[in-house]
């Protein structure tokens, strides 16, 4: 009698058990949500070069002008610095600046990756605005 009851309990087919499939699908969705930003490109917003009419300002702000040289040298506010020194000085300058604006100019044969590295560094240290300067032809 006992055996028959147990058999009946196990032999009742109640359709496919899809719970595990739903679990896997949900895990896949979460996995995709997390991984999609890693696969796609992101970007750094920049101000394109332009010439604006200069107006006199009452408040003087600390400027962060970075000039990249062809030979790998870096000028920070017209003074030679190494990349490590720039790492050290940039946050201090930006902390004292109101606008937190970083202006980057380069010599003619500087590689794009170097400029992005500097833009990236400035952004890491909280630069509010990034501008790229161009010499007018």
């Amino acid at each position, binding site marked *: 009698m006992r055996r028959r009851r147990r058999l009946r309990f196990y032999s009742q087919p109640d359709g496919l058990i899809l719970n595990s499939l739903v679990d896997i699908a949900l895990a896949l969705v979460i996995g995709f949500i997390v991984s999609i930003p890693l696969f796609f*490109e*992101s970007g*750094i917003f920049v101000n394109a070069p332009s010439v604006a009419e200069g107006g006199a300002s009452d408040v003087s702000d600390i400027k962060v002008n970075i000039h990249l040289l062809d030979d790998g040298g870096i000028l920070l506010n017209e003074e030679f610095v190494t990349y490590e020194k720039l790492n050290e000085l940039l946050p201090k300058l930006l902390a004292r600046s109101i606008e937190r604006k970083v202006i980057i100019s380069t010599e003619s*044969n500087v590689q*794009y990756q170097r400029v992005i590295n500097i833009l*990236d560094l400035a952004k890491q240290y909280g630069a509010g605005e990034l501008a790229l300067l161009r010499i007018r032809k």
Partner: protein
Amino acid sequence: MKRMQNINILPMACVGLMLVLMMMVIAPLLMTHTQTPVDVPRAHTAETKTEENITVTYTIDSRLLVNDVEISPEQLMSAVSSELEKDPYQLVVIRADKGVLHRDVLEILANVKKCGAKRIACATKKSEE
């Protein structure tokens, strides 16, 4: 006792989930134009914005493409202007190879700005370091 008959919604949920998954994969591909292989520079701090944009691609062999259509440098301004006519606030993404000279990228940036672009971004990839 009569057994209650429920509607089995699990297959529908599965199909729904699969559709969501497919949409998530396909939507960014349709909105962005990144079919041309370019080794974009690496950066730590990058903002991810998956929105419809105008993509200006500049390859290491100096090819210029707007939305994956190859153009000559002289055609750049007209191509970007015609795209910006639809929406002046559309994001313009500059996808330049990390090995190109910065002055070439600046030239492109300046031309894009002349076309009236209000939002410009340089494409980067998240640095793994």
